[in-house]
């Protein structure tokens, strides 16, 4: 074990002793000084999570959130110095975090927030032009085999809980007290321009969009959506994707290269 191993391990593990070999000019106990580094590391990682999971934090309160985030940071510290997308494992950690068991929807709210973080920093891709789209849609016979490329920022989250309403209520839309967390909701996350949007969509639309995103052509994606048996409005779903500039490529053969 090198001195650096001891130093690094003690930073993240409060049960480890202060590393050997540290000194202070006045002969004072270096453990007190080492504590500054421990604190810096933990605060920085907790703050990084707090930035991305604001609604999760509001739902549990700051003290609970920081304790949960610190436990996560110690168990799953970042593997990269690029922290913009740190926290991919945090929703799963929340789902298994016993003190949060009383809020079964918390992990899905965190999943939604993480999708927003990823969408914010996703690549910018121009949507297909109206002309290209009109030309392709005019070919009705070819539509079932048509594949659609979607924005890199786009994601679908199908939840057993009212994640969209909870998220919206925490952003001043709707009354939080009126939200029934146990109502299943499907969220569409995407960034049409500079702002990430969270849109509640019917579950069948979620299945359809997820199928398109997986590279399946329109016809097959629509079949999967209808197989859900809860009604599927193809025109409205396509209309939403177009309105949000979500379609970035057309693949007549249905194959997504």
């Amino acid at each position, binding site marked *: 074990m090198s001195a650096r191993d001891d*130093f690094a391990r003690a930073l*993240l593990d409060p049960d480890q002793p202060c590393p050997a070999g540290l000194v202070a000019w006045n002969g*004072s106990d270096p453990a007190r000084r080492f504590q*500054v*580094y421990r604190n810096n590391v933990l605060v920085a990682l907790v703050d990084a999570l707090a930035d991305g999971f604001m609604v999760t934090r509001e739902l549990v309160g700051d003290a609970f959130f920081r304790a949960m985030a610190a436990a996560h940071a110690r168990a799953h510290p*970042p593997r990269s110095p690029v922290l913009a997308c740190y926290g991919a494992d945090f929703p799963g950690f929340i789902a298994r975090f016993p003190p949060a068991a009383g809020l079964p929807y918390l992990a899905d709210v965190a999943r939604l927030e993480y999708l927003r973080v990823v969408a914010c920093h996703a690549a910018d891709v121009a949507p297909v032009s109206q002309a290209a789209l009109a030309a392709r849609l005019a070919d009705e016979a070819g539509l079932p085999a048509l594949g659609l490329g979607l924005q890199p920022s786009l994601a679908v989250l199908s939840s057993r809980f009212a994640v969209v309403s909870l998220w919206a209520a925490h952003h001043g839309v709707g009354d939080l007290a009126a939200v029934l967390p146990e109502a299943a909701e499907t969220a569409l996350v995407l960034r049409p321009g500079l702002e990430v949007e969270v849109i509640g969509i019917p579950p069948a639309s979620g299945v359809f969009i997820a199928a398109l995103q997986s590279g399946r052509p329109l016809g097959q994606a629509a079949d999967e959506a209808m197989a859900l048996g809860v009604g599927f409005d193809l025109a409205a779903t396509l209309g939403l994707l177009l309105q949000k500039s979500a379609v970035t490529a057309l693949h007549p053969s249905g194959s997504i290269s």
Partner: protein
Amino acid sequence: MPKPVHPASPARGAAAPGPACLPPRCGLGLKPEHFRAILETQPEIGFFEIHAENYMVEGGPLHHYLTQIRSHYPLSLHGVGLSIGGDGELDAVHLDRLAALIERYAPDSFSEHLAWSSHGGVFLDDLLPLPYDRYSLIRVCAHIDQVQTRLGRRMLLENPATYVEFAASTFSEAEFLGEVVVRTGCGLLLDVSNAYVSCVNHGRDPWAFIEALPLAAVGQVHLAGFACDTDAAGDSLLIDTHGAPVSQAVWALYRRLLGRVGPMPTLIERDNDIPPLPVLLAEARCAQGMLQELAP
């Protein structure tokens, strides 16, 4: 194989060799909360500085705003994640990301820290101290050579704020930095606040420390605020928070430094408790006033 030292002439704040250099004026750290205010008001400011790692994302608002702001202002790229003081190999993927960012924004300066932040594949998100011994010197110089070769430009190395020292150290920090500058040809980013914080924390005289640094290699100055704590003996322990205005003691050192090295690109750093842009612009004007006192 040591490279020759570039005979920069920083007494006139010019001529750090490289693709470009920052103007000898005061700049500010660029914060997303100020993007729109900057573009709307186009304030009179020497340059903006960004933390490189914050912009290592594919798209979105960060690049949108930075692209616009870059078109109006000189830019300093300041890395916080290379772990130049680390034990292991530099992260080549991270160095590639840095090269791509430099390609995209053509910054006027690139700087990093005499510190480590990654170990064993884990990023610890802090600038951690290293012993100043022969082994560290060889590692740090090898890393800086690698960075300068990969990026094709000279980098500036920043002196750290530290809270502990190592029994194993055989160089003073100033001696260590002097050796690194001689062996690699890199420049020095002199963080006056870090110098002050470290000297208070280690019972030394800040001006004597600054005078012992390789001042001819200074290419940029940082100024920031700190918090006050005490150590186990009840002596002052200053914490480099970047969360407060620059202190009077640091301003006094800065003015004295300018008298010695001449006008220097100077950054007001503020990364926590970020106030509205006009507050930071006022602080930048303090530094700008001191810079202009030196103008012929």
